[in-house]
């Protein structure tokens, strides 16, 4: 079935460790790709998005993501995490010419230990 998958359900890191969260999608055609973050008790916030052009996208709070078209992947990275990065991270895909709505991945919970 066509879907968005995220590799890890829960990731636990120490502060200053490097982070990489995997995201894969199974749709063909042109897509827009997004990473959203949800801090405990808060709403979804956009971290970064990819529409076209440079496949390495930089977002807020030191996050970046790389779109690899051949692998249908859009992995999220941060070189050095902080305790305040503890949150749920959602990858989302919007298929062009298939409407305006998003398909979200199941989410990855990141816990950063101080």
């Amino acid at each position, binding site marked *: 079935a066509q879907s968005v998958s995220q590799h890890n359900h829960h990731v636990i890191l120490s502060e200053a460790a490097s982070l990489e969260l995997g995201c894969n999608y199974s749709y063909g055609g042109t897509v*827009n790709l997004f990473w959203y973050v949800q801090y405990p008790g808060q*709403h*979804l*916030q956009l971290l970064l998005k990819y529409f076209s052009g440079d496949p390495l996208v930089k977002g807020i709070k030191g996050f970046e993501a790389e779109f690899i078209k051949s692998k249908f992947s859009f992995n999220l990275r941060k070189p050095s995490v902080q305790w305040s990065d503890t949150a749920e991270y959602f990858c989302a895909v919007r298929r062009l010419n298939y*409407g*305006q*709505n998003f398909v*979200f991945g*199941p*989410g990855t919970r990141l816990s950063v230990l101080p």
Partner: protein
Amino acid sequence: EPEVTQTPSHQVTQMGQEVILRCVPISNHLYFYWYRQILGQKVEFLVSFYNNEISEKSEIFDDQFSVERPDGSNFTLKIRSTKLEDSAMYFCASSLPSDRINYGYTFGSGTRLTVV
């Protein structure tokens, strides 16, 4: 920065009761959406609304659900007869069309619906 506002933040309702969740989208946005997130699960698309009509809906959005833009600012989701499994966080979102240069897609803070 413009925000999508949702009220109430938390609503408790008895099974079988009707509930209306309210949202005020960003004023120059043209598309409006409802998503839901059952506790511990992923965010799921419910419905999108454009030009005063539903443009897309998922299989979750059955006859128990309806949406309305009763005036120029509010966008509501009504659940006619709530079931226990409707308990979830409901997110409203609004956006410009994707072909606009400043394409934006903004979520509200959510309404936690608890059906008892």
